[in-house]
């Protein structure tokens, strides 16, 4: 990364322990089929440099690009202009510790693409409201 890294806000980072083998979790997070079940429809492929889209339904498709693949432990992709997402998997004797990192929360990053951060934020907020609502329906179904 460049020296703009220090301008970024802290990453979102969440860790959960799954009662499943690391290979099973890897398949869930590193295949298009798996990602579509728990996250969003997509045309992901586990190949560095692969460009794909996450389909947020009525809110459009976000362009993404795979930046790191290290089976079965680590996967990263860029999400839209500013964000990056990393999945980290650690084998815990048959269970799997899963860590999600969502970073790139930078006002600087937005200006770099000529779009005010505020505009991006409002649009993304709208997008997320819809996604979370949809997820709620899916979970209750």
């Amino acid at each position: 990364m460049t020296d703009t890294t220090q301008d970024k806000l802290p990453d979102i980072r969440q860790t959960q322990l799954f009662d499943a083998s690391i290979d099973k979790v890897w398949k869930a997070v590193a295949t298009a089929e798996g990602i579509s079940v728990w996250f969003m429809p997509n045309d992901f492929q586990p190949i560095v440099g692969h460009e794909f889209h996450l389909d947020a339904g009525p809110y459009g498709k976000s362009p993404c690009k795979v930046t790191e693949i290290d089976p079965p432990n680590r996967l990263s992709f860029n999400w839209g202009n500013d964000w990056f997402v990393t999945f980290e998997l650690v084998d815990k004797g048959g269970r799997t510790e899963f860590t999600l990192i969502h970073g790139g929360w930078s006002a600087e990053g937005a200006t770099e693409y000529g779009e005010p951060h505020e505009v991006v934020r409002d649009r993304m907020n709208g997008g997320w409201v819809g996604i979370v609502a949809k997820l709620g329906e899916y979970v209750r179904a």
Partner: protein
Amino acid sequence: MSEPNAASAEQKHDVFQAISDPTRRSVLRLLGDRELPLNAISSHFPMTRPAVSKHLRILAEAGLVKERKVGRETRYRLDADPLRELKNWLAFYERFWENKLDALKRYVETDD
């Protein structure tokens, strides 16, 4: 290009823009537990007083810094309230991921 200029007085800066700069974050930390005049603040930074003053103005526009006159001196202090906006925003995405990770957990813990 991101150097603050005179025009920025009319164009309000939001909290996100205000804290995107490392110098301004340092200023906020400095003002975390005390009120300080410009001189005392700028002595902590390798830049001119006018430059520090511009950073303070951006912080003030975002509502993160309050100023008051004491005699001929202007003193600055932190007002952390607007940071709640930022916290709410990040909290939204925290919830989003909690939901997603719960869905992932159910998915991987289901027997094939």
